[in-house]
């Protein structure tokens, strides 16, 4: 590892939710890292903990039900989980920004776009330097311009309810990027929009991220988008990272049975109709299966899978997979 700290480095993160009935072990020892300027994809089915991971990074999980028994999240070498409120507020926004799935809910209904963008711009301005009314206005306009919205002057005086879903999503992206973050977390951007708008939104994110050289974590169900937009992909299953690889390698040669299943669910124009998918569903987090959490659904299940949690094995340079099928391969030195 080089002396320059990684942009983001999550080590052995556990997140539990304490609810009636017991303890939901939602994140079970997540390891995740990314370099500055990298574009990383995070895929996995609904309920596997993608959003929980991202919310933990920004510490916006409601903490009474949620509970972090162990783990560290280093952002540029500083542990986010140990930060005080002031440092945390500085990391949020200028360090890490987030775009949410539902653009309608992410805008405050009682303020117009100008007022909301103004608040973000004023907040993200360099401390001590006060921007004039006109500067804020101009900056808001250029942010709206960047996300390809026409007639920004009128838009600034509009309320969220007066905009279409696609426009709102663009406003959210513009707002998130107006703080000039080093890392952008896009949590299923545009999933609630129709496919053509979703496509536009994703292309827009790609253009902006490339222009500004922002690092991005893209969370999505749509594997085609991951293939097109990212350098490296993490595959998540039931609170575990099961496979990590450069995007091309992962799509060409998926190793983990879950990844193989996930990729086979993509409907193809050629070939025999709708794929079979993976039978079964995400396990109960209250009593997760012992050993590998995927074993009840796995076609290659072995005795060891039921007893022991697989470490990350490295079947290939920069390709890591948590599956005993690859236990003969050299073990990753960084994991226990």
């Amino acid at each position, binding site marked *: 590892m080089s002396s320059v700290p990684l942009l983001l480095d999550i080590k052995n993160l556990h997140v539990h939710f304490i609810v009636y009935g017991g303890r939901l072990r939602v994140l079970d020892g997540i390891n995740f890292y990314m370099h500055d300027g990298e574009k990383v994809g995070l895929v996995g089915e609904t309920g596997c903990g993608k959003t929980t991971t991202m*919310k933990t990074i*920004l510490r*916006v999980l*409601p*903490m*009474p*039900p949620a509970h972090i028994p162990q783990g560290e999240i280093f952002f540029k070498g500083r542990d986010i989980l140990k930060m005080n*409120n002031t440092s*945390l*507020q*500085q*990391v*949020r*926004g*200028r360090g*890490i*920004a*987030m775009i*949410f799935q*539902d653009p309608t*809910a*992410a*805008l*405050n*209904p*009682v*303020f*117009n776009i*100008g007022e909301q963008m103004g*608040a*973000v711009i004023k*907040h*993200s301005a360099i401390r001590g330097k006060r921007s*004039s*009314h*006109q500067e804020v*206005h*101009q900056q808001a*306009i*250029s942010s709206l*311009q*960047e996300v*390809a*919205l*026409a007639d*920004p*002057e009128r838009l600034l*005086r509009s309320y969220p309810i007066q905009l279409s879903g696609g426009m709102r999503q663009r406003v*959210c992206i513009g*707002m*998130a990027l107006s*703080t000039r973050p080093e890392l952008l977390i896009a949590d299923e951007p545009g999933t609630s929009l129709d496919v053509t708008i979703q496509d*536009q939104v994703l*292309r*827009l994110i790609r*253009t902006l991220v490339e222009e500004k050289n922002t690092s991005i974590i893209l969370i999505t169900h749509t594997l085609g988008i991951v293939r097109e937009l990212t350098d490296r992909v993490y595959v998540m299953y039931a609170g575990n990272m099961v496979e990590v690889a450069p995007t091309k390698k992962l799509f060409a040669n998926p190793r983990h049975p879950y990844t193989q299943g996930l990729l086979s669910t993509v409907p193809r124009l050629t070939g025999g109709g709708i794929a079979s998918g993976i039978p079964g569903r995400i396990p109960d987090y209250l009593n997760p299966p012992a050993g590998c959490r995927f074993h009840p659904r796995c076609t290659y299940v072995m005795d060891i899978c039921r007893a022991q949690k697989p470490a990350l094995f490295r079947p290939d340079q920069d390709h890591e997979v948590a599956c005993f099928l690859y236990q003969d391969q050299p073990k990753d030195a960084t994991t226990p």
Partner: protein
Amino acid sequence: MTEQVNLRRDYSSKLTIQQIKQMERESRRQNLGRSWYKFSRNPLSVVGIAMVLILVLLAIFAPYVTPYPKHAQAFTDFANAKLPPSWQHLFGTDQIGRDILTRSIFGLRSSLLMGVVVLVLVVPIGVLLGLLAGYFQGTWIDTIIMRITDIFLSVPPLILALAIASVLEPNLWNGMMAVSLMWWPWYTRLVYGLGVALRNEYFVTSAEVTGASTAHILFREILPNTISPILTKMSLDVAWVIIIGSMLSFVGLGVQPPEPSLGTMIADGARYLPDQWWIAVFPALVIVIVVLGFNLLGDGVRDMFAAEEI
């Protein structure tokens, strides 16, 4: 892709600061216009606001508009006692010869003052506590605030007010304190419920991840979304506070004679029912009109904040 490139042209605002401010003023005026449109669509709301305005003006200018301002204080005129309504005394006179119309309008003063002062004391405290408890739901802040609220809510409110008012020296100000003490938990409860729902909204999370301070989230993200139920409740509560205040003075724990108060007047007049009915009935009627006016106004406020049906 090409379409996007075309849209993303350089555009810099050519507006001056005056023009920007002018546009902002204009949109504020539009908002006011829309609010009045929605408020006034129900004619009864307009009647309500007119009633309230007239009552408030009467109360403010009581010494100038009443026929016998002297009768508001200690005054006796046994020769003219218990006169039925006439042109000289529209509401008649009471058992010691004072003009009931005059005393009702002066009584209105303390009633309205009570309504306003109680809400001015209660709303900021109740709302602030509710916001804090709602935003920090599940933490010790929530527990402390809401359990104290529960304690106050578990005591029958009128009994609590009576107890407080009787321990303290009975007068208008202590009556107000007593009513305020039993009233704030309702606002805390209301805002707590709204706050718990709002804090999980994505726009709040969105503000959090942008690095907004707790104060910004409480007062700029959550509070503005709770304004409409708060204002609606306030406009209806004025009437309730006036009723409770009148109850206190009815049992002798509010405004003390000879200072006029609607509750005391009803209590005094009740002894002369049914023969000299006007002594009790007219002050009671004034209370009815005040309460009706504020209720109609409250309905209008509720309509004003309701989403527009298209």
